[in-house]
């Protein structure tokens, strides 16, 4: 479905937390999970041009043109009022970018970059765009040094991975929960595809990092941690495992009143995982006060 264009929620020229080295990060709009704990909920939905955001925009950056909501970056003051007003968790500031647009941005910043990470939303919803983009980068001599990563929830069938993996250097895969019922409750979706993706990616040597969000009273239970340990061992004791701690930053809806994950709990889980023989358990590099 790619016509060489993707809806881009945001891009960064400097990110040190999305893979090895400094990475250009492209956040694509739209997600097939609806996580209650999402800290970027405005990347989930797709704009329906309802215009609720136009009414709250204080700078006149958002206008209705015919049936469409149009965003003008010039007057925009990045106050994000539109994001809070959006009933569908979409983002009217999304811009449509072509593969060539992205290549140009990469070229402008290439000396500073170790690679590109495509995140979301869910990056693999834009699979054809990803394949076109990655293929073009690999074919460009001035960009070929960039490593190409995908940050994904893994909700992609094997056929999809098989198409994109030949041009992909690594995948950071989130497992949201192991208990199927809990996974449905937290994300609105089943986890069987995610778990299968973890195995497929490890087998293909493309699993850069397995990520697990610890939520108090949900995914910090001994059962969840022991299931995580079992999966990581199955994938190989050298699997790089990153534990993240649930925080309120950006969260909207009921989870905003949940307790944040305490540092001690994450460190205790890391201790259990390390004791089980996992070589690389990574903790958050900064703890919020």
């Amino acid at each position, binding site marked *: 479905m790619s016509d060489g264009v993707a809806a881009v929620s945001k891009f960064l*020229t400097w990110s*040190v*937390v999305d893979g090895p*080295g*400094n990475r250009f990060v492209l956040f694509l709009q739209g997600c097939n999970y609806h996580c209650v704990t999402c800290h970027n909920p405005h990347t989930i939905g797709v704009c329906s041009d309802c215009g609720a955001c136009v009414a709250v925009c204080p700078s006149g950056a958002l206008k209705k043109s015919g049936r469409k909501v149009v965003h003008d970056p010039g007057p925009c003051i990045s106050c994000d009022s539109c994001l809070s007003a959006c009933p569908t968790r979409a983002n009217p500031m999304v811009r449509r970018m072509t593969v060539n647009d992205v290549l140009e941005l990469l070229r402008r910043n290439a000396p*500073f*970059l*170790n690679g590109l990470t495509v995140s979301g939303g869910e990056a693999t919803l834009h699979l054809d765009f990803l394949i076109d983009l990655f293929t073009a980068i690999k074919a460009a001599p001035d960009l070929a040094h960039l490593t190409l990563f995908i940050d994904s929830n893994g909700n992609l069938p094997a056929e999809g991975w098989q198409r994109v993996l030949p041009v992909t250097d690594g995948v950071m895969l989130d497992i949201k929960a192991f208990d199927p019922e809990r996974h449905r409750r937290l994300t609105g979706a089943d986890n069987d595809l995610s778990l299968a993706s973890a195995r497929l990616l490890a087998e293909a040597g493309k699993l850069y990092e397995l990520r697990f969000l610890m939520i108090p009273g949900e995914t910090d239970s001994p059962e969840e941690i022991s299931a995580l340990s079992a999966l990581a061992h199955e994938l190989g004791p050298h699997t790089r495992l990153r534990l993240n701690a649930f925080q309120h930053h950006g969260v909207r809806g009921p989870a905003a009143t949940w307790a944040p994950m305490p540092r001690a709990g994450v460190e205790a889980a890391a201790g259990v995982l390390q004791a089980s023989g996992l070589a690389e358990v990574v903790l958050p590099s*900064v703890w919020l006060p």
Partner: protein
Amino acid sequence: MTETLSQLRRIAQNPTLSFKQKEHALAVEAENMLPYVLLDAETRAALDARIICDMYEGNAPYKPRYVLPDYEVVLKNGSTHLELPKPETLDEAINTLQIAYHHVPSVTGMPVFIGHLDALLLPFCDGVSDDELYRKIKLFWRYIDRVLPDAFLHADIGPTDNRVARAILRADAELKQVAPNLTFLYDPEVSGEDILRLCTDNIIACSKPHIANHPIHREVFDEPGYAIVSCYNALPLRGGAASLARINLKKVAEASSGEADFLDVQLPRYVHLNARLMRARVDYLFRQSGFFDGNFLVEEGWIDRDRFTAMFGIFAMAEAVNHLQDLAGRPGRYGHDAAANELGHRISARLAELVEREPMEHVWRGVAMLHAQAGLSSDAGTTPGVRIPYGSEPDPVSHVQALLPHHKHYLSGVSEILTLDETVRSNPEAVFQLAKGALQLGFREFTANVTGNDLVRVTGFMIRLSDVKLYNAARGSRVNTTALGAEAAETVHILDRKPRVVGLELMAGSGV
């Protein structure tokens, strides 16, 4: 006179200053009881309005602002004046340098340059094991920090990857001292990526070293080359800088009716007045102070009176651009908006052109060198040099891209500080790539602070945040520059921000 006396009394009775610090402050006051060097009325008026500024260097310049001795002379020949034989061993070489430092003047009263240490010491390292070398360097480092505790004091290493440079980087990261400040001269053809990576890892540990773009600096200077000293000033080796005077671009913009008036009328006017101020000060130093007459540093060849430049400083580029943007009714801000950034780049190009047209007697190559000046601790409401205002900096990559076009114009240095948040600690490769990219694209120098480090950079010099806390609790500090950092912290709340960058540099009269 009563005001002067009470100022002298305040210094004499200040409980937070050490004996040495009082002595220096009293000397500054005494110099300023002399009449100012002779100025014409127009220059005097611009100075009094602080549109141009002499950095409070003192009324009667009797020593160059920065002295960069060629220490190789004393290591090769010894010194007749100091009755020092030529050193033969590493211990003797370090001892000779330690003695030499005490005879090198500068505006701070302590040397601002202590040598290209790896090049100086390598010839003495045959037969010295790596471990022995590292232990000797550690003692040397401790000596410097305890005996010459001034953060403007600067050591250079590189561009080769060598044992001494590595021992210094290792000791420096371990000790995390304020002094000496440290610059690695990086040349991609010579240095190799291994030592660049070691440097960026050290930045994560202690916000040092500063990394200079050696090929770019090298082509500016003739033999015997240059050194990076004090607040990242690039100056001729075996010489230095006679003086530094600067223009407050914000005030020049406020005196302008618009961009054209600024570029075509006001800027040329104040460049000319600042040049007159510099000429008067340089003239006093060379023709009246007697500094170069009968000076053993000159007679033995440590310094050469023909190798002293004059630094033509500018600051508050950000405020000047934003003011001109306001006058033109354009909303874009410096550091963020392409048109505002380009206006800044045009101003820098114009400055370079104007400074080139102001001949200066006694000065190396006959013209001053443009410098993006890092500020005084008493400046308020202005941003140092061409920097982007604190708290509004974009991400490090956009930051470098926004300032890059300025760099080619500032031949005697453009100190820029990138602030990196703490997450880089777990991803040192990103800092390496950032430094490599910036240097590859032509950044003259790469300097970074990492949040969470106790040792942070106050524009050009280093302070320990724990020292600032102690000083503010009225316990004083054994390090001279802590008072400047504390003043800067108070004046512009530079430590309140996250990430922490300290904005202003100097105490009037004693700073760099």
